[in-house]
């Protein structure tokens, strides 16, 4: 496939890895923000092709993993109501709440439907006027244009039976939270390519400068990731710290302006709690007051939520790059993709799920 096959060229990946090995003189810790990149790195063995000086730690860019437990519990409560058709991206269905997940609510009779696009949820609302259709609007800046458009569409179509349960998070505040931590080990970031396709990368220049860390916009194919790492290591070795773009075919400095306009029309900045990490100020988006009619939290009074995390799970430290999945005593034992204790074991973007799928042998040897 065009724009995929040529970026999986083993020869080019090897050449980039050689170039990294040639220029590196001391150890560096790089964090890839996006869980999609973590999976690519594990799947293609990119970490194993790098010189020993380069350590990759895995970032918080897994929307399913950081959606707060309280909100999962609210989703479970709303989805259990008989008048509700609850719609969601597929990855959310197996995320453990305090006592159950959306799959078990569905098995108990809840009408829960997986949608590919938020516009599918709007269509379901049009087709089911006598039911309440709720869409679980989660994600980073990548899903925000789509989720925001579903609200605008419902508003345009005058749908009174559509609402959204919103938990949007934004990457730059999380990057700053990690860099500000006294335990921080991260010396450079591979920024999430598709977040930047929407938002551009102008937001990263002040962060790179303030904390003196290179931030390089990076894509998802093996050649893209190697190229991102190469550009990052070059900066580190030269003592530079700028925001740069190694994914120019999809990302511009200013990003997608029409998408940003719709996001800003529907959402505004709010404080958000990140699962396993805690509250990060101004780190997410919520519905603007003008769209409060579409707020599922207001429409369905869901009180009496007492979230309870597994005491074994160390997902929070993994999401901050402080620990790796192999450091967890429950990994592959009490916690597996079939019976996840934490969200990082569930998602196609979670670091624990990536290690379980591609590195189980290595972790068990340790």
């Amino acid at each position, binding site marked *: 496939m065009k724009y995929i096959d040529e970026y999986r060229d083993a020869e080019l990946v*090897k050449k980039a890895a050689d170039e990294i090995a040639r220029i590196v003189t001391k150890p560096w810790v790089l964090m890839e923000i996006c869980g999609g990149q973590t999976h690519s790195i594990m799947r293609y063995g990119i970490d194993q092709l790098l010189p020993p000086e380069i350590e990759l730690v895995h970032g918080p860019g897994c*929307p399913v993993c950081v959606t707060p437990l309280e909100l999962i519990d609210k989703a479970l409560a709303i989805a259990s109501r008989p008048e509700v058709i609850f719609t969601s*991206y597929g990855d959310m269905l197996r995320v453990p709440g305090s006592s159950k997940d959306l799959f078990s609510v569905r098995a108990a009779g809840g009408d829960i439907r997986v949608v590919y696009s938020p516009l*599918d949820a709007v269509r379901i609302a049009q087709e089911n006027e006598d039911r309440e259709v709720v869409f679980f609007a989660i994600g980073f800046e990548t899903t925000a244009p789509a989720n925001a458009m579903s609200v605008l569409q419902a508003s345009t179509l005058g749908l009174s039976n559509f609402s959204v349960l919103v938990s949007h998070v934004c990457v730059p505040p999380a990057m700053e939270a990690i860099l500000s931590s006294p335990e921080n080990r991260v010396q450079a970031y591979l920024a*999430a390519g*598709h977040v930047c396709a929407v938002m551009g990368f102008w937001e990263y220049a002040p962060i790179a400068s303030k904390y003196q860390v290179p931030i390089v916009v990076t894509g998802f194919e093996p050649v893209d990731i190697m190229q991102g790492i190469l550009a990052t290591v070059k900066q580190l070795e030269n003592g530079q710290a700028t925001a740069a773009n190694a994914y120019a075919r999809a990302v511009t400095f200013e990003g997608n302006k029409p998408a940003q306009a719709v996001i800003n029309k529907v959402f505004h900045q709010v404080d958000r709690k990140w699962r396993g990490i805690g509250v990060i100020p101004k780190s997410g988006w919520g519905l603007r007051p003008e769209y409060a009619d579409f707020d599922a939290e207001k429409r369905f009074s869901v009180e009496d939520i007492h979230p309870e995390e597994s005491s074994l799970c160390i997902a929070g430290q993994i999401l901050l790059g402080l620990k790796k999945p192999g450091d967890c005593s429950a990994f592959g034992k009490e916690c597996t993709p079939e019976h996840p204790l934490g969200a990082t074991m569930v998602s196609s973007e979670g670091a624990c799920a990536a290690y379980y799928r591609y590195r189980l042998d290595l972790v068990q040897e340790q």
Partner: protein
Amino acid sequence: MCLGIPGKIVAVYETNGLRMGKVDFGGVTREACLDYVPEADIGDYTIIHVGFAISKVSEEDAQETLKILREIADIEEELGMNEEYPDISETIER
């Protein structure tokens, strides 16, 4: 959830006031909203994410990336740095 995939626009139309289209992913065709890429038309490649095109792929930049990496490869060969390496083609899934 953030794994957008590049696909080729094969049809453009309007539904409920939104610019929609059919996008081909190497043989599999799906509907996508094209409202955020007004500059993209039939034959163009866009990155599709949860049913929305979020970016038009720049052919020029795509070629440039590959060219830069191939040039590194050429320089290394000229400098005689191209020793024997273990075959990684199995690591790199195709």
